[in-house]
């Protein structure tokens, strides 16, 4: 068992190193996200709408669209350099590859949010939060990124092997993300606006959703990366 996670860790470290060696992937994703956030908050200013009401919607739409860019790269490197077969041989288990890629995508998304979320915060001029609210906000960011990375990694493993990957990936991804979108917007909204809603239910929902979509690919990934 420890051997299993050791191998996950090895591939994860390799991917992270790759990510930071070239850096262009993370950088372009962050720039894209900054642009999105800028356009969104500026557009809301132009229409005189209350931005703090729409903050969580803007936040998550920005993250969802940027994640398409971020996740799409994760298997592309292997494909370009034909490393996939070697990786399959070295890991021996496709679940290991999935977990490593998933963790790598999660890390990239969290780094991305580290830059984009404070920026959106400044643009929209929302007041500071209390400790509990801030914790809830960060928690929902983490839960959202987890689900996004898990589903995205699984689907990217599929689309990367097809010719029309760029178009197919978002088409496959977004319908599956709807329950996550609902849950995560409820959580961020509650954190920001402090509405007294039964919230713990949504947190449990998100956690079980994420666990389901992390375990399910572990089973199905054998069929995705076959032969």
């Amino acid at each position, binding site marked *: 068992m420890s051997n299993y996670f050791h191998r996950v860790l090895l591939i994860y470290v390799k991917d992270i190193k790759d990510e930071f060696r070239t850096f262009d992937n993370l950088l372009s994703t962050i720039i894209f996200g900054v642009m999105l956030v800028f356009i969104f908050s500026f557009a809301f200013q132009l229409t005189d709408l209350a931005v703090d009401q729409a903050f969580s919607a803007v936040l998550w739409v920005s993250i969802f669209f940027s994640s398409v860019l971020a996740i799409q790269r994760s298997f592309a490197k292997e494909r370009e350099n034909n490393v996939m077969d070697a990786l399959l041989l070295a890991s021996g288990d496709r679940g290991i590859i999935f977990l490593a890629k998933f963790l790598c995508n999660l890390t990239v998304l969290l780094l991305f949010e580290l830059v984009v979320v404070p920026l959106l915060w400044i643009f929209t001029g929302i007041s500071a939060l209390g400790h509990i609210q801030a914790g809830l906000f960060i928690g929902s960011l983490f839960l959202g990124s987890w689900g996004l990375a898990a589903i995205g990694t*699984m*689907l990217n493993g*599929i689309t990367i*092997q*097809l*010719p*029309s990957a760029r178009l*197919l990936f978002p*088409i*496959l991804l*977004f*319908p*599956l993300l*709807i*329950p996550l979108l*609902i*849950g995560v917007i*409820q959580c961020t909204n509650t954190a920001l606006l402090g509405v007294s*809603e*039964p919230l713990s*239910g949504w947190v449990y*929902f998100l956690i079980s*959703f994420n666990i*389901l*979509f992390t375990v*399910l690919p572990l089973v*199905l990934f054998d*069929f*995705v990366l*076959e032969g």
Partner: protein
Amino acid sequence: MLEGWKKFNFWVLMLLVPINIYLIFLYAPVEKTMGIVQKVFYFHVASAWIGLLAFVVVFIASIAYLANRKVQMNHLALASAEIGTLFISCTLLTGPLWAYPIWNTWWTWDPRLTTTLVLWFMYVAYIALQGGGTAENRRRFAAVYGIVAFINVPLVFFSARWWRSIHPIVVSGEGIGLTPKMRFVMFFSIVTFSFLYTYLLGLRYKGISLAERINRLKAELSQ
């Protein structure tokens, strides 16, 4: 065997469809508050039901394909997905046509409406994934997506319902008092549509198999 079943199915349809139309237009009473528009309801609900049933077939056929790798299972899943898209489109188009004159709105984010729309998106994604070619890996991917997407359907429905239970629904589909006569007609419509579904499924399944055979023949010829 399949041909015989198709013939039988066709004649059952020829019998059921006229009876169904008679029942809807002449037998079922006109709803007091909504008037005649309410009669769209019988086909609306029946096609929604078939849309969901077709997805169950996609799910089961996908599992069967991954288990035994029979091409037929993949053909069945694709045929079912196409017909499911057709019926879900019917539901999505008739829904607003019915809702607008009654509630004065084309669309509300009711859990059922939301789920139906997401279901439509997933069907389209499934067909897009499978439709680009007949390579073996596309079949496998489509099967994986079919399974994951089906598991997603109840999650969408319950999360949408839960969200709506917190923010009260302005317009609700509940409270249509169905009289026993209406109930019977609705049940009859569902039966008719189920036969329509199996008929179309058989037809489309054969079409996909024929296309597959042409591909094989072409490959043999070019050798």
